[in-house]
């Protein structure tokens, strides 16, 4: 199993913005059955790791290898969107696939299928801002799933959610993990520690906190220093 090819591998990566380095010697491997939580302080580089994985930025040094054949679904932080924008829930979900002229019937059907999966199909014609915080987050989750990803990346999915809603979200993620790898960023370690197999603290570099996954599938430790448990 040690020769399995990772979907994404960060090796000794330094990255940052405008000459300000926020991440050094970061190491991370994401396999097709990984469920990784990135935790750590604000400004510690969690979002930078996500941006590297999404190819939004290039590393200053080190390497970021991404399997060319995979689709990555992305759930951004919730405050990234204009909630007054005139767009329906269905169209938000559909925007998860590239479209030049018209969506295919299959794409529209798949969008409805995803909305049924998260119990939002009855709201598909609503304006996006008319949903509650938790519903909206599920709609954006559907948008991330439209590209049928092998890897789902979530940035702070539980922000602004009450406890019930975020529990619901983590149950959905558990369900999704049966068919895709998951990497999520969170500031709170408790609500997900029972779902994620691997917890990595990102504080200017990567530290392995715990790795249940490693006991199931042996693979090379992904940290170089300060590994704790």
């Amino acid at each position: 199993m040690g020769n399995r090819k990772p979907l994404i591998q960060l090796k000794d990566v330094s990255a940052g913005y405008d000459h300000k380095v926020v991440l050094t010697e970061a190491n991370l491997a994401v396999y097709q059955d990984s469920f990784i939580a990135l935790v750590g302080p604000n400004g510690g580089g969690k979002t930078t790791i996500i941006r590297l994985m999404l190819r939004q930025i290039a590393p200053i040094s080190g390497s970021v290898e991404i399997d060319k054949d995979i689709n990555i679904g992305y759930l951004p932080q919730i405050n990234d969107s204009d909630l007054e924008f005139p767009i329906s829930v269905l169209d938000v979900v559909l925007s998860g696939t590239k479209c030049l002229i018209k969506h295919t019937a299959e794409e529209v059907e798949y969008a409805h299928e995803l909305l049924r999966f998260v119990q939002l199909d009855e709201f598909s014609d609503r304006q996006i801002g008319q949903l509650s915080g938790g519903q909206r987050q599920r709609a954006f989750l559907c948008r991330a799933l439209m590209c049928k990803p092998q890897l789902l990346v979530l940035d702070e999915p539980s922000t602004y959610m009450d406890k019930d809603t975020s529990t619901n979200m983590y149950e959905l993620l558990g369900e999704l993990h049966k068919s895709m790898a998951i990497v999520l960023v969170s500031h709170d370690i408790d609500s997900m520690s029972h779902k994620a197999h691997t917890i990595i603290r990102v504080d200017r570099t990567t530290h392995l906190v715990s790795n249940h996954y490693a006991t199931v599938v042996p693979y090379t430790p992904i940290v170089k220093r300060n590994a704790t448990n």
Partner: protein
Amino acid sequence: MLQYEFMQNALWGVVLISVIAGFIGTVIVVRRKVFVAGGITHASFGGIGIAYYLGINPLIGAFLFAVTTALSIDILEKKSKIRPDSAIAMLWSLGMAIGLIFMFLSPGYSANLMGFMFGDILSIAVSDIIGMATIAAVTVMLALLFYRPLLYVSFSPGFAKLSGLKVGLIQSVVSVLTALGIVVAIKAVGIVLVLSLFTIPQAISAMFTHNMKVMFFVSTIIALLAGVMGLMAAYFIDLPASAVITATLAIVMVVLKLVRR
């Protein structure tokens, strides 16, 4: 009143400007780029002044200034460390200043300054109509054909980029059409009041629909109704059409807001 050619031209102008404002204004409003549009509008006066000084068609100068400003703002918003709103305010007032300086440098400068500021709907010529029709046709065609990418890029440029859309290209096309659309509308409603047609009908239609495509058409109809009101006021009681258009739109919006509370 339609037996006069200038009235026929004015009516055609109103129809075409309503279409341009209905479509482009919707995109401006939903993307929250009203201040950018204000910057483009006022900066175009710099081009008008220079063209006037050189004795060429003021519209050409306005086009060049408006498009340059629009694309510069795009770049400033993405790359510069200057606060974008401050940069826009600078381009806004600099354009006005350049325009004013060149107007005063022109011999016999008593140019129709009022016309540029507040529009002159009854002076729309056939050549203006051809320009308006071209821009209206291109705008409507692109907006409807590429509705999906336009919607997705407007809603969330970052996510649209991830899903593989050419966000920069789409935004540049929108910026250029915005600049061109605003400039042709200036002839009729003037620099100071042109934004009313690009924002108030859209704000009204947003009260009734959350579908961007429906907003295109509802905004167009509202702009057209206000435009016809302005035209009639100009013809029958010699009031400036642009002021009547703006006042009509504002009253309709306030009344609807009160009624729908």
